């Protein structure tokens, strides 16, 4: 019986402690031991791996963002007249406010990095193939939610950087044919950005997106359990069997170490570069050159190419290209039907992944270099 195995052996003549009696009380009514065993004793073929930690790390980062975000809401006000002042109040006056804000800011960057890492791991391990197509698609939806989190949160401090980066970003969305104008006006809450924009972005960032993320993450976890972990892509049956262990405790422990490392890294980043706001948002950008968050920089630079100049060019670059890429990703499990999961035997997949990563890196660095030439 699983229940006997999941707890350490108890000596038979030992009086049950209060805790043990409480556990027995719950177990009788809820089936606690069996439920615990079913949830935790998931066998991982080939054993627990450090490569698998990114999913749990993402959940951890989300929990930390929710915590720090809630704390920030104790002092932040989403009105155009007080957003900047209240954010400055947090940074300069509230005890350790600068640190918690820094944690929230760098945590969002960490989330994007881990999402890319997680997607890359799934892609390279071929864990999007049958029967995990739905998992992959829900995952892409989660990716979209994470990016939208970053985009909506960026506006909230209401300084020049926030305001103008959002303005440019929404203008890009406006280029979508047919529904572009509607979407842009919906997000802006009007023809131009202002208080309505801030309110809408705040609601999205604080209520709508967290609810969506929790729902999708729940679905993602459920689908993952139903499909079972894919496991490593190489290894003889003997090797896989020898290394098999359960999700608990070994994978959970690895997940926890990963979480601890990410936590420490975000603290380090918050200490290295605390959040410093620019001047308060103003209708005139003045000397400021709008720029999105670092994880959008590659795309920002791409749109600077003359290839995407002019109305048709803008449409191609701002709408057609990203949409086509996302459609390709969604369709990936249906296009790639080869059951081979070993990345070294999937040259197209490997080269595509390397190419995309190099492309993103290249254009991000190019964007940074380009700052020198903005006059």
């Amino acid at each position: 019986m699983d229940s006997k195995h999941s707890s350490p052996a108890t000596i038979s003549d030992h009086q049950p402690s209060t805790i043990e009696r409480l556990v027995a009380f719950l177990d009788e009514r809820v089936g606690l031991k069996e439920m615990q065993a079913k949830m935790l004793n998931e066998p991982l073929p080939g054993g627990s791996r450090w490569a698998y930690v990114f999913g749990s790390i993402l959940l951890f980062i989300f929990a930390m963002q929710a915590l720090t975000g809630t704390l920030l809401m104790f002092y932040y006000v989403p009105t155009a007249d007080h957003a900047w002042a209240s954010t400055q109040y947090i940074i300069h006056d509230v005890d350790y406010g600068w640190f918690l804000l820094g944690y929230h800011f760098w945590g969002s960057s960490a989330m994007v990095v881990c999402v890319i890492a997680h997607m890359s791991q799934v892609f390279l391990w071929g864990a999007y193939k049958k029967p995990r197509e739905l998992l992959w698609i829900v995952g892409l939806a989660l990716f979209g939610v994470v990016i939208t989190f970053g985009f909506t949160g960026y506006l909230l401090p209401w300084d020049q950087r926030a305001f103008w980066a959002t303005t440019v970003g929404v203008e890009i969305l406006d280029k979508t044919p047919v529904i572009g104008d509607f979407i842009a006006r919906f997000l802006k809450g009007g023809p131009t950005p202002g208080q309505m924009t801030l309110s809408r972005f705040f609601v999205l960032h604080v209520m709508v997106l967290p609810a969506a993320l929790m729902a999708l993450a729940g679905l993602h976890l459920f689908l993952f359990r139903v499909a079972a972990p894919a496991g490593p892509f190489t290894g003889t049956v003997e090797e896989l069997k020898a290394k098999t262990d359960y999700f608990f405790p070994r994978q959970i422990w690895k997940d926890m170490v990963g979480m601890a490392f990410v936590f420490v890294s975000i603290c380090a980043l918050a200490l290295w570069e605390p959040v410093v706001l620019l001047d308060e948002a103003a209708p005139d950008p003045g000397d400021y050159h709008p720029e999105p968050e670092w994880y959008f920089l590659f795309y920002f630079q791409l749109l600077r190419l003359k290839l995407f100049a002019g109305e048709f060019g803008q449409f191609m670059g701002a709408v057609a290209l990203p949409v086509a890429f996302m459609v390709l990703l969604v369709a990936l499990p249906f296009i790639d039907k080869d059951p081979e999961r070993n990345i070294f035997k999937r040259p197209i997949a490997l080269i595509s992944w390397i190419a995309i990563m190099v492309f993103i890196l290249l254009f991000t660095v190019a964007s940074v270099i380009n700052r020198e030439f903005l006059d």
Partner: protein
Amino acid sequence: MLQPKLKSKVQCTDLNIGEVTKVVLDPLSHEISHIVVSVNGSGERQVAMGHVQVVTDDLVQLRAPSTEILALPPFKREDYVTTHEVEISHLEDHIHVTPGEVLVPLPDLEKSVKRRTFFMNFTTVIGFLIGLPIAYPILRFLMKPMYADFDNEWLKVGNVSKIKQVDVGVQFKYKKKVKEAYMPEAEVDKNVWVLQATPELLGKVYQGKDAEFRDARGKTIWTNKKDVPYLAFSGKCPHLGCAFKWRQHKALGQVFLCPCHLSIYDAAGKVLDGPAPRALDALPVRVSAGGEVEVIDMEFKAGTKSQIRII
């Protein structure tokens, strides 16, 4: 409860008629109600448990002859669903009809209990050590505005020329500038009761001792000298904070009267009647040569016997 095992042979009083292929449960009582016997050659029969005499691991003994059993109506599978298709709580606790067990091997690495407990505890330790560093900053973060320092500025409230009689309460209204966090500076209307006091009244109020006022750290910031003939009382009633008035009372004469719960104080601030827990709160007061009255605005916790300053 009898637990006839699936696949066990079924024996009537006279001969062996077949084997148990299915077991039917009563969903309310969670007890086995029937067994379904596959009769050699002629389909299945549903047999009530009442017919069962003895159950062993591989044999079910019925107390009826085979003819009676064979005369039972044939089993209708379409009238039933499996226990996987319907949610019946705690079913496995009561029903043990599977002969033998279905097993999955325990991975070799999981066989060590020490390993299991070590990583379980290690995980808990790391989890604790992630939460610990941020606990204190979060607490301080949330508590920042709760115990704010006192603002001990002197505020001009009016001129003593407004006071026409001694030992009579005169309300001085003034505006206090308040800056809360990042909000723009706002003005609040406040009032204070000032009296020009006779030596007798001063004696009743000070009882021979100067009144000291301290800041948040306990350092004395001002002393109301007992011979200065001016008194200032905070405009908030110490009972629950209402603004009170100076009135003529039928029996008690000229008094401070709080309209909310009818606390009554004399000119010295002492409680004459009503639910007030302490006397009126005196404020630091000074009068310039030109008669300008200044006070330090303070507020005290309402409803307590001892005076606890909050603003």
